């Protein structure tokens, strides 16, 4: 596509699969990745339009363009600015952050199951967020609480495996144990402080996007803004790292420090997402895997994983808002059901391939 055009214009055929800009810069680009990214973007836009326009309170399609360009009035303004706008932005932001976090973690542990929601990072951040919000309101901010919770959970996993994050079997089992402890902490905090509010409990345990504000959208936006440049820096070293520790050492990408950076960035991203939406399950696991299966390329797929994560969140939230089967369920229950089924499918597939 772009490569041949760019090469043709300068009268020189650029190397295949590279995006060449004025013969000075050549960036490797796989055509299928570009198409996939564009398709994902289109689907996210479609999902967003559906989120804003469907249902009894939806903004009619004819008025949507005007409303988005600043001409919203009355009910439309309320829906766009208070009800669904912030919620949609938070859904996209958390989806991006979780997809990216999953891709980083899976690449660092070289294991699809070494993903934040399987090994207890989400649950840990959720427990920290619940603790900060309910036990220490005002003294510790929720994002900071989520970060501390996530770091503590990962430290506990790292210590209890005895082999760090290397051994996938130990990682998974220790993660399940730590996740159970963290979920118990969350339940304890909610029952102690909020007594019997079932809706409150499920929001803290499963994650929810109900009544999010622009403040939440700003928080996740800032986290993404702060972390994404660093992930771009670590991305190349991660794809080198996927060739194995020895080769990546030989190529000058120290595998140990690369993995440490990736894990730290993943924890920050997860903590950011959890602090605005709660411990949403299985987006971090599924998004990078789906991205990988579509493009069939090597490497950590950071961009595609984050786009897929955003799309999954927007779609899940659309289900949560519009499906007539169950009313008013938090979005985390949908991602848990669908993501869990996908993980079960992955497990049976891997059995046939003989891995794990």
């Amino acid at each position, binding site marked *: 596509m772009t490569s041949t055009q760019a090469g043709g214009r300068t009268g020189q055929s650029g190397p295949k699969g590279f995006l060449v800009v004025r013969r000075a810069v050549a960036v490797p680009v796989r055509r299928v990745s570009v198409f996939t990214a564009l398709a994902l973007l289109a689907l996210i836009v479609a999902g967003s339009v559906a989120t804003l326009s469907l249902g009894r309170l939806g903004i009619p399609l004819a008025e949507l363009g005007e409303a988005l360009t600043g001409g919203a009035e009355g009910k439309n303004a309320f829906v766009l600015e208070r009800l669904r706008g912030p919620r949609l932005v938070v859904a996209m932001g958390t989806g991006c952050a979780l997809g990216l976090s999953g891709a980083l973690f899976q690449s660092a542990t070289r294991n699809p199951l070494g993903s934040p929601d399987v090994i207890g990072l989400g649950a840990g951040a959720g427990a920290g967020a619940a603790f900060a919000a309910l036990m220490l309101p005002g003294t510790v901010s929720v994002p900071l609480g989520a970060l501390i919770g996530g770091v503590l959970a990962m430290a506990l996993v790292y210590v209890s495996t005895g082999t760090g994050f290397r051994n996938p079997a130990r990682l998974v089992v220790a993660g399940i144990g730590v996740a*159970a402890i963290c979920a118990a902490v969350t339940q304890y905090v909610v029952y102690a402080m909020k007594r019997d509010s079932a809706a409150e409990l499920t929001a803290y345990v499963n994650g929810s996007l109900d009544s999010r504000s622009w403040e939440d959208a700003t928080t996740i936006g800032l986290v993404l803004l702060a972390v994404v440049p660093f992930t771009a820096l670590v991305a190349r070293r991660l794809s080198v790292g996927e060739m194995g520790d020895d080769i990546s050492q030989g190529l000058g990408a120290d595998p140990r420090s690369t993995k440490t950076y990736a894990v730290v960035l993943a924890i920050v991203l997860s903590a950011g997402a959890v602090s605005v939406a709660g411990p949403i399950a299985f987006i971090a696991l599924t998004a990078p895997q789906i991205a990988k299966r579509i493009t069939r390329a090597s490497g950590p797929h950071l961009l595609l994983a984050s786009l897929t994560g955003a799309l999954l969140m927007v779609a899940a939230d659309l289900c949560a808002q519009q499906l007539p089967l169950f009313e008013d369920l938090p979005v985390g229950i949908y991602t848990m059901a669908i993501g869990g089924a996908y993980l079960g499918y992955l497990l049976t597939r891997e059995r046939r391939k003989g891995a794990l």
Partner: protein
Amino acid sequence: MATVTHVPPGSASHRGTARRVFAMIAGLAVLVLAVAASVVFGSSTTSVGDVADVLSGTADAEITTIVESRYPRTALGVLAGLCLAVAGTLMQGVTRNHLAEPGLLGINAGASASIVTATAFWGATGSTAAMWWALPGALVAGVAVQIIGSSGSGRSQVRLVLAGAVLSAVLMAYIQAVTLTKPQVFDSYRYWVVGALGGRDFDVLLSMLPFAGAGLLLALLLGHSLNALALGDATAASLGANPWAVRTGGLFAATLLSAAATAAVGPIAFVGLAVPHIVRAVVGADFRWQIVFSAVAGPSLMLAADVVGRVVMRPQELMVGIVTAFVGAPALLIAVRRMRGNA
């Protein structure tokens, strides 16, 4: 992957037997203490003297009501703890996997999902109906986990646990979806979903007894064959035990016990994991001893967890299922260190 050092039946030294008898007496003493604590401690403060007065019939009406309200939950804790611990021991013996446990492997979640479905859509009510509905759910979940979790070349411990976690997650999502959308149907199930001993009466205990009794009896009968199975299938067959029959019987007994416990007190995890690990360390590899000792240690752990839950945030109560996760999940972290290779 588990190495089971087997003590052949009959060759146990006198010292070993003496140690087990001593351990058994100590275990019973702990159980008596746990029962006493469960009667004495609660969300309202009562003293040992109050309880003595109630037992001799000289206490005033209010104290009597408070103390007597603790009888059913204590009895329920004993029976549920016994069921879960024996089920865990059976499952670990049959699958030779030290991570096997009804909560982790999704069997409790299957029983719960089945009960919730029957209650929400087919109008099932009462504790006996719950027992009967729990059984098919537990069986289906157990088979599903085996199918997803078994791998082509030998069994992997981790695959099974992961399959259980996945199944539990999906089923819990379903349970929450149903209970949140029909709150009026599930008013009495609010704490049951997390696992709780409080608020149930002796009827629950009575409807649980036949299932628990049948499961325990089957477990005791299988003890000898499980010892043979631990030596490997071929040796077991030469010793006169049919490996397939022992496995099926063991898993069925474990399912019966888990279903009964779940129907009565909700999906409680980690009791069935922590107790067998303690029991193995104390009485060794003989399954006949393990099963008997689990039946003593399980209730103690369950009651201790319940007492902690009652006093930790007075006057509110913390559900026993939350406390067992705090106490039991570390057992999983300890077990991780003993896993070898990629298991």
